[in-house]
């Protein structure tokens, strides 16, 4: 449990049962998910030469989702054909994810385990996802080392997180937690937010090569998120390659 903060884990355990309610505590993730999925599916398909129009475009690829929560990302990845392992330090989230995958008739290997422990066992994957998690991690350097170790040479690490800007403080902390009440208060500690340059530097230090950055922007009018290569001021994604 080296890089996991116990207080942070407890918060998500309380949320676990309500992961799959699109209007529940995870509603912001449900709203964000199509946008994240478009980007991630495209990055993986491009890296491994897959056609997204095919029936199982990610067939034969192994993928680990670090901080999988209730499985909002793991299930779509399994549906696209990937062999998916989901990790979450909160056993409540893992239990919720297992129950939902069974009801969805999907085979996903969920484990209440840390990235470090899995990496230490020698497991390696074509794709490692770490989404909306790095801002909750206590020791960033060790966490990135584990992500790198979990990824096969030639594979991808894809991260998403919140930028540390005035805009993210206004929108993610004050807006989402206090004004819109999308998230329970105290979900985010703004001081832990990471700028894209800091994230890229941490990846480089762990032996990963950052290859793409993408912003995600919420439009209050349409109620939808869209990808934006220009605006990384609040939510953004970073894709890294593990050199072959």
């Amino acid at each position, binding site marked *: 449990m080296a890089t996991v903060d116990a207080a942070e884990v407890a918060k998500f355990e309380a949320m676990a049962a309500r992961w799959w309610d699109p209007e529940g505590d995870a509603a912001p993730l449900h709203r964000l998910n199509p946008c994240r999925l478009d980007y991630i599916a495209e990055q993986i398909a491009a890296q491994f030469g897959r056609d*997204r129009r095919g029936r199982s475009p990610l067939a034969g690829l192994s993928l680990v989702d670090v901080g999988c929560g209730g499985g909002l990302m793991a299930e*779509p990845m399994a549906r696209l054909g990937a062999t998916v392992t989901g990790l979450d330090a909160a056993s409540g989230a893992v239990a919720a994810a297992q129950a939902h995958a069974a*009801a969805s008739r999907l085979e996903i290997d969920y484990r209440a385990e840390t990235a470090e422990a899995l990496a230490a066992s020698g497991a390696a994957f074509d794709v490692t996802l770490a989404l909306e998690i790095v801002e909750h991690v206590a020791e960033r350097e060790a966490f990135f080392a584990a992500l790198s170790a979990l990824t096969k040479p030639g594979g991808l690490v894809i991260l998403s997180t919140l930028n540390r800007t005035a805009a993210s403080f206004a929108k993610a902390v004050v807006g989402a937690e206090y004004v819109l009440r999308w998230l329970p208060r105290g979900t985010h500690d703004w001081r832990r937010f990471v700028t894209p340059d800091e994230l890229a530097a941490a990846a480089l230090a762990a032996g990963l090569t950052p290859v793409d950055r993408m912003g995600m922007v919420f439009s209050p009018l349409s109620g939808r998120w869209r990808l934006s290569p220009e605006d990384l001021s609040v939510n953004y994604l970073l894709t890294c390659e593990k050199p072959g």
Partner: protein
Amino acid sequence: MVSSLDADIVIAGGGPAGAAAALALAHGGFSVRLIDPRPVETRAAPEFDGRAYALASASMKLLGALGLWEGLAPRAQPMSAIEIYDGRPGAIGPARLRIDGDGLADAPFATLLETRFLRPALLQAVAAHPDIRHDAGVSVVEARQDGAGVEIALDTGESLRAALAVAADGRRSALAARAGVGWTVRPYGQTGLVCAVAHERPHGGVARQAFYPGGPFAMLPLPGDRSAIVWSERTREAERVAALDDAGYLAEIALRTGGLLGGLRLEGGRWAWPLEMALAYEFVAPRLALLGDAAHSVHPIAGQGFNLALRDVAALAEVLTEARRRGEDVGDAAVLARYQQWRRFDAAGMSLGMDALTRLFSNDVGPLRALRDAGLGLVQRAPALKRAFVAVAAGRAGETPRLLKGEAL
């Protein structure tokens, strides 16, 4: 690692909307079962039965994107202009408004296509597609959904498992009703009388609509010197006309064409059905999407029924294809909500717009007449309004799905 399904999507209803949905969804990469209660023979009948569709340009583009339009175009009659008249039967006035199709970027803005050509073309394309299985003469008995899919029981005793069921089974869809969907229904007290006529004078590709006190009367150009007649009339009067012999019926038609087409002869059958507006409260239910007349049936005043159905088809195919390419469960409520959000406003607006237009025009009250005469004059004089009017008639209001732009998914 998805569990095995008999098909990704099961469509109930093999009419033009259901068949077009099957083709669009298969084009998007889905495997489809098309469950059609009618036997194939009645669908492929080659005789001209007097019925035709007025296809908006967006509908032609969708049929083009699905590879059907090339074969159909030689049999279709482009509509080069629309003329609007009013008056009384036997006393038609001069044209109040004329809209030329070449004022638009992509003329013609609509095309007439006889039902007998569209139906076989759709069914042949369905039969030729490796990812569609067409079950003719088979009905859906029941659909039961669970967290991972929907079980569809057929009257053959077979049971199909799919991710999503589509109700394309027409007005007041039985499948949607069993899922608890309700409709707001508004009868017009009118009956639609439909037939086709051969005529002496050429129509010149012009569609003519006369607004009579009993309801609108449309003369829509077909290939050769023939026109489709779509006549909406107060039900009591329509029943009287429908009971006449062919000669008497034709005399009533001639009274209303006002000599614009010269001498007339009936071609094919005569059709009558009561007109009502029906709009589903919801276009989706758990693991069920409604489209076409199942979701909304409108007055045929501007031939929008099938065009609206194709707009549903294009939006549904695009939403589901996008969802599948990102790994979402295509029967998930959040995915279906996107389809409903895209379509419901447009369909409701169209239904209510047609409803208001019909009520405005189907009367002989002095002040209302003056108002609509002024309204038509305003449209005639204001090019922007006129373009907007045509744009709606051509199906281009709101955000446009890719298929309606003729683009692949």
